């Protein structure tokens, strides 16, 4: 199993979720985060003083998937979340030792 972490633009959330669902992903967890990267925040003005904002709002998805789905999921995210503009985000893949469904205690791929 792999633990996929994807940082995407917030307005892509619904599209990505739908795309993954149709791949057979049954669950994921989303978090509002602030991203720092090549895409810079706008220069903002407050009460006559200019300032830079370094962080841009992003959404982080965490998706535990069985090994068979990994490449499809990664592929699908990169396709659907891509706008081609700077700041589209990243996908990170980590190794996942174990997964347990709390409700039933089931472990492994069936828990996802």
């Amino acid at each position, binding site marked *: 199993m792999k633990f996929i972490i994807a940082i995407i633009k917030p307005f892509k959330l619904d599209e990505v979720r739908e795309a993954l669902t149709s791949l057979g992903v049954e669950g994921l967890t989303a978090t509002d985060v602030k991203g720092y990267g090549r895409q810079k925040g706008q220069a903002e003005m407050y009460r006559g*003083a200019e300032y830079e904002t370094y962080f841009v709002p992003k959404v982080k998805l965490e998706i535990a998937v069985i090994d068979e789905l990994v490449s499809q999921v990664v592929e699908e995210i990169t396709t659907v979340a891509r706008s081609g503009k700077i700041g589209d985000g990243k996908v990170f893949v980590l190794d996942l030792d174990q997964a347990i469904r709390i409700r039933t205690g089931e472990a492994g791929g069936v828990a996802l």
Partner: protein
Amino acid sequence: MLKANKPILLGLVGATLALAPLAATAQEVTLESLKAETAFVFNTMLFLMGGFLVMFMAAGFAMLEAGLVRSKNVSMQCLKNIALYSIAGIMFWALGYSLMYADVNGGFIGSWMPYSWPEAGTVNDGSYSVGSDWFFQMVFCAATASIVSGAVAERIKLWPFLIFVAVLTGVIYPISGSWKWGAGWLDNLGFLDFAGSTIVHSVGGWAALTGAVILGARKGKYGDGGRINPMPGSSIPLATLGTFILWLGWFGFNGGSQLAFGDNANASDVSRIFVNTNLAAAGGVMVSIFIMALMYKKVDVTMALNSALAGLVAITAEPLMPGPLASILIGGVGGAIVVLAVPMLDRFKIDDVVGAIPVHLFAGIWGTLAVVISNPEGDLIIQLTGVAAYGLFAAVASATLWLFLKVTIGIRVSDENEYEGLDKAEIGVEAYPEFTR
């Protein structure tokens, strides 16, 4: 039948008097006495209505400031605003009113004593009820203190602030107020300040300026190399609400300062004041929006809000005489002052959290001088004398008091408390405990 039963309602003394007047006094009623009594009631109503509108400005200041400070200091700002209004209400009774109005006689100060009102049920002498006048004057005094609280926000300790307010509302404001409104030396000289551009707003502004300077800027506000780090306010809608409430209150502030509503001419003048007051605020907003659109492309709503207030402050010294265009322009200059002075103060590292100094002090000075434009009795030298006298007194008295508080109990919270926010440090109750920041 209903009607027959109803008159016996609430309030013992009130009810008795309410039912009695015709019978009891009918015999002595003359045309003159009726005219005078009617005018008395109208004048009293003007004070009470103006008074409650200005009272509500306390809520306006509270919301404006709650919206413009960061969320970690919002509870503190709320507490300070309700506390300062309470303190002003008590101190202006205990000391203020008499210091301001009792036996000034062209001098520099009134008398040291609490004030008192005629007993319940008494027919009052004069052309308005004594209590209504006190109420109206008290809410002006409280407004002066409200001005200070925003400028020194986010870093001042609670208790020294409250002590400052007690002295400001009980002593400083009343003494300087006596010079003009108590018929003191500046009134004799011919200084004009209809509703208090100087007497209220500049005095509050000086107290704010000295406070902001003596306290120093918020930690992190001014970086190396002149970098200014904005600390955006937590809630623009609350700041907007506060501004609208203040705008509303200003009709009471300026309109009530006509002090009379008992006949055609006075009622017409109060109406004129309403209109001019509104036009000046509108002028302030529009001028500031135009300047910002030209200078910055974007239109900072917090500056537009400040500019409405600056327009109001500017017209306050003479809301009666100007025509409509003059009112718009007088207010408009107030708006321009805000847009230009806010960044200027930052350049001097004077950290005025809500813009109180440009709005109340700078626009207040402008408004006081602008009296000569429309009022033929205005004299620029005398107006300048007044501005200087008030400035000197208010700045010296305030600075002395701030410094005294600084060396005795200390006025500034620790860096850690400032970082964590005053709400945690002094209130124990966060303003928005559930929202993630």
